[in-house]
């Protein structure tokens, strides 16, 4: 079953066009990597999906329902959840309060506070602290946990390895496996081609707002990927 279907998506910031006819789909249970250099339009693409960019054109269907023209408040209830670039935790809320914000539009499912603490035990120890007091990796865990609390069908992760030590990245990526086992599909936005391709079923490569390559993660060679990535 196709969970997400994007057809010929254009996106604009004022006069500036950031996406050109992006077409992409995600099957239920699948992990899809979206890779591309800085400024390629990856974040813009995710923001279009969740409704944070008003100036968009093209068709977006989620679970068969067109969501292209709907505001973010509505879309979030359908089971689409974003781990934003730079985490964007709420600094005036404790760790636990941050997680609870994610549960505001909770759908039925297996994720709740206890399960998130089971996934990231360190967050339980730190649940009463302010997010600033946490390490970068722990803050990413809060952002992922917050997104999980709504029990999304599709989890969108924007550069969840950015600025982290390799060991911490391993830990975060291991948690993605657990999340997938619970039934969520994942879109993984990364600049790290190898890391993303290793964790995904399929890969899309974005260059200056256009999809330059897509295919199965096993089938694409690293050389082919980096050509599409750098546009050489």
């Amino acid at each position, binding site marked *: 079953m196709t969970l997400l279907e994007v057809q010929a998506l254009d996106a604009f910031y004022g006069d500036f066009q950031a996406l050109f006819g992006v077409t992409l789909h995600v099957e239920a249970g699948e992990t899809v990597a979206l890779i591309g250099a800085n400024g390629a339009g990856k974040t813009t693409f995710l923001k279009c999906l*969740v*409704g*944070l960019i008003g100036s968009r054109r093209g068709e977006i269907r989620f679970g068969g329902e067109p969501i292209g023209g709907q*505001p*973010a*408040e509505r879309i*979030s*209830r359908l089971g689409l*959840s*974003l781990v*934003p670039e730079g985490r*964007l935790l*709420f*600094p*005036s*809320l404790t760790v636990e*309060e941050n997680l*609870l*914000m*994610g549960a*505001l*539009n909770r759908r039925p499912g297996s994720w709740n506070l206890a399960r998130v603490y089971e996934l990231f035990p360190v967050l339980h120890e730190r649940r009463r602290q302010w997010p600033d007091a946490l390490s970068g990796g722990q803050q990413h865990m809060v952002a992922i946990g917050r997104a999980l609390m*709504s029990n999304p069908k599709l989890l969108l992760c924007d550069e969840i390895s950015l600025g982290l030590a390799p060991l911490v990245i391993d830990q975060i990526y291991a948690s993605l496996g657990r999340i997938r086992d619970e039934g969520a599909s994942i879109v993984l936005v990364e600049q790290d081609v190898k890391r993303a391709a290793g964790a995904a079923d399929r890969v899309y490569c974005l260059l200056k707002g256009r999809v330059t390559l897509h295919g199965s993660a096993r089938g694409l060679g690293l050389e082919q990927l980096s050509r599409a990535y750098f546009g050489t």
Partner: protein
Amino acid sequence: MIWVETIINGVLYGGLYGLLGVGLALIVGVMRVVNLSHGEFIVLSAFIGVSLIGVVPWLHPLALLLPVAAIAFVLGFGLQAVLINRVVTRPDPFAAILLTFGVAVVVRNLMVEVYGADPRHLQAGQLAQASAGIGGLHIGVLPLLILALSVALFTALQLLLTRTRFGRIVRATADHRDVVRLMGVNPGRVYNLVMGLSLALASVAGMLLAIRASFTPYSGVERLLIAFEVVVLGGLGTFWGAMLGGITLGVAELVGLRLDPNAGPLYAHLLFLVGVLLRPSGLFRVRA
């Protein structure tokens, strides 16, 4: 002895100043807008009180606090929903500030139109004169009541913001207006409720001030000035800071009046100036 009394009365009165400021602090903290019509709504609440007294003259003004606060809440909600939400998301913060300035002018002139420019006063009867003798000191009963009410409202606001789901949503919206949308929260609706709350708190202060001193449709500027000083002295966006800022100004004003009966709030304004020069981030800045 008279000085001790003056300072105690200043503290009691300062709670009211804190209440004037806290609604403004709430708006600054949650939507980064300085509501320049805050003072006009404080005065408007007092006029609404006057009107209600005209309808039910046997009621004590203190009994009208709740209905006036409810009306002010609705006015704030409407003001935000109809006007301020249109500009609050613009990157340029001046749009919202200019809009509230326009609202202030319109509300002020409407009050002149409806109520005239003569000074008004809310009569509190014997309560206004009653004083309690404590250890040889004469402490006004009304100021005591006012301080108790202010502390109670501050505490309630604090609990609302820190302990409830609504408070959590308000703080999160203040932090990241866009991110809460991903959790199904409409920031505009949160703002509506917060503006309602802000003006409800302001209306209580407006009614209590009107019992203590007379007012005209033009009193809003002075009210806004005090509220603004309270907020800045207290440290922008901190609530107990606003309370302490109010008390500091209240004491300064009453001590100043003792020294020089014609000074009005001059000494409070001077203290504000000195305070801002010494500690630009506020006297009572703590972690928000």
